[in-house]
């Protein structure tokens, strides 16, 4: 079996079989990360370009390492050092990168739908590394992978996603991926930060964390996107933290031993307390490692490397 499309743009468009294929492949590739010589020849001769219009530490590095561990050639473009600052359009940039023989473009962009647009412009594979408020499918997959490693499967689990769901591309990918895998997903956050009509996606929303967390197997804390808070959707970070910060007291409302996750970067003391972020239930650091494995799997499956 292979992936259906040339691109990975969203989990909304991906079936559970494809997701499982990616996660199974990640399982077999993960050990490469722990080898003394982290290099397999799988993607030798393939050219992968990461193209980030927004700042990123973990996603961009994770993709780059995933590509390098499999011997692909990588080039990184960031907005500030590219012709974007001269006003070059995404369309022209896409044509330019295509003309240089890129096999895969990994893009992060501030505008929802940009990766779909890019995928129509180029023959190369496009991987969405986060588009506006839309999706972040590789984050969704690494989150699922992390849960699967600890729980065996997502089937029947209750996952509580807490925080700024409205602006979160991570939340959207998690909702699609986890519900398609049989998990129950509930959302918690202030009403001004919850999207309208998401009950149609099969998720329930709560405004009180205390109502959402009981029975949860996984507590997934979203980053408060302070750069998007200028519109005054919550009165203050202080008030937000008082009502929504996941600390030891609140985490205790979930099932004993519930998994605690966060996509990073964290605002400690705002959406998550250091007591739990660095605590025994936290998988936040492991998520990062798993991100490399999942991205190796995606690159491998998309670029059709020679025998692994």
């Amino acid at each position, binding site marked *: 079996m292979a992936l259906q499309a040339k691109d990975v743009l969203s989990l909304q468009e991906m079936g559970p079989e494809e997701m499982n294929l990616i996660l199974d492949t990640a399982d077999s590739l993960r050990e490469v990360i722990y080898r003394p010589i982290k290099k397999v020849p799988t993607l030798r001769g393939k050219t992968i370009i990461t193209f980030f219009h927004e700042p990123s530490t973990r996603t961009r590095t994770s993709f780059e390492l995933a590509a390098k561990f499999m011997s692909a050639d990588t080039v990184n473009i960031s907005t500030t050092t590219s012709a974007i600052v001269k006003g070059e*359009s*995404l369309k022209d940039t896409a044509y330019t990168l295509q003309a240089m023989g890129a096999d895969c473009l990994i893009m992060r962009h501030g505008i929802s739908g940009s990766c*779909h647009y890019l995928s129509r412009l180029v023959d190369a594979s496009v991987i969405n590394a986060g588009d506006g408020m839309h999706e972040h499918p590789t984050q969704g997959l690494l989150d699922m992978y992390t849960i699967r490693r600890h729980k065996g499967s997502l089937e029947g689990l209750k996952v509580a996603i807490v925080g700024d769901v409205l602006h979160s591309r991570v939340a959207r990918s998690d909702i699609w991926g986890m519900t398609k895998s049989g998990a129950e997903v509930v959302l918690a956050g202030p009403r001004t930060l919850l999207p309208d009509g998401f009950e149609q996606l099969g998720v329930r929303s709560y405004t009180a964390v205390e109502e959402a967390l009981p029975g949860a197997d996984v507590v997934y804390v979203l980053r408060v996107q302070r750069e998007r808070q200028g519109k005054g959707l919550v009165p203050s970070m202080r008030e937000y933290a008082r009502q929504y910060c996941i600390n030891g007291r609140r985490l205790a409302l979930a099932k004993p031993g519930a998994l605690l996750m966060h996509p990073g970067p964290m605002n400690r003391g705002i959406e998550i307390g250091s007591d739990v972020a660095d605590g025994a239930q936290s998988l936040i650091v492991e998520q990062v490692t798993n991100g490399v494995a999942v991205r190796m799997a995606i690159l491998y499956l998309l670029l059709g490397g020679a025998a692994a």
Partner: protein
Amino acid sequence: MTLVVRGGRILDVETGALNEGDVVCGDGKILAVGPAAAAGASAGAEVLDATGMVVTPGLIDMHVHLRDPGLEYKEDIVSGTRAAAAGGFTSVCCMPNTQPVVDHAAMVGFIQDRAKRLGVVNVYPIGSVSKNLEGRELAEIGDMAAAGIVAVTDDGKPVWNSELMRTALLYSSMYGIPVIAHSEDPHLAEDGQMHFGTWAGVLGLRGIPGAAEASMIARDCMLAELTGGRLHVAHVSTELSLSVIRWARSRGVKVTCEVTPHHLVLTDEEVSRSAYDTNTKVNPPLRTAADVEACRAALRSGEIQAIASDHAPHSPDDKDVEYNLAANGVIGLETTVPVLLTELVGKGHAGLAAVVRAMTAGPAGLLGLKGKGRLAVGMDADITVLNLDKSWRIEPAAFQSRSRNTPFGGWEVRGAAAATIVAGRVVQRNGQLSD
């Protein structure tokens, strides 16, 4: 020069009756209408055989952006009126948001002159409410009315200043012309890319709630009541807006409204289905299925007086970009007739008469277009001949318009404007324009 449109089924837009008959035209006027009217025509008359076709008054699109002058790379009076003729329209009303803005009589004269020399169909300019569309001071509405504008509007944006809107309604009432409102609360609509709802949430696009439209309509209706002025609401798109207009009308407010073909046919789901195709980006945005049904019902009942395409041409450079960066708007002159005949009339959502009335007697009445909108002796010889049976595929590459921004490209349709007749002259026949 005499023209006989012979043997067609002449549509009575009031009763819906289709009666076989002829229309005889001479000197730009209708000389005779009815069964065997051709018998009285002069021997050398040009004959257009309309057997099997439906003959209607010339269609009027009261909301069109011709982009001329200033934005000719999107459209101009030649390409825009050719698109109108190709689509079955004999008259268009053009919006004032050109560069420079149509905010004084000289600009009105400029457009009328160009349309007369170069245009293929009748062009009625609409003036702006405010100078340079800035929303601060009234444009020279009296002067423009004397020059022939049929309405005023700051279309493209709302008149946000309530006092200016009050003044505009009061002032324009002296000239018997309506104020056309682009109703949108700018704060509620800020950065909005599509309708506010589940799909906007799923797609991660900022939504524009129906309340952004309806709340401004409510304000404008109150100001119309206060002043006794005439309000026409452009491109109504939600059930809530229609409800507000119904309420205002029950209080005796002089308010009319129009709906676009895309708001009668497409929903916000189209943005998802098309994977962010920027040809689904339009203002007001595509709404929900319930809103579409409310618009259809209001069209059937006559609560919506006009169908207008809001033909908004944009070049590929304006549209072939990321969704948030794309210009709002779709073109409609060449798709309105086939899309409505297929999706509304063909599927039983509205009768032929209701649809045609909203593009003939409806707009002619509310704008006071003399000699337009009816097939009767003495009226202007503007006639549209419809072929309800022609099955074809909408190919944007073949458009007369300079732009291609349509969400209907590739649609299989049934129904077409078989001929367009302006002042007794056939300007389009079977898709061919007469040059």
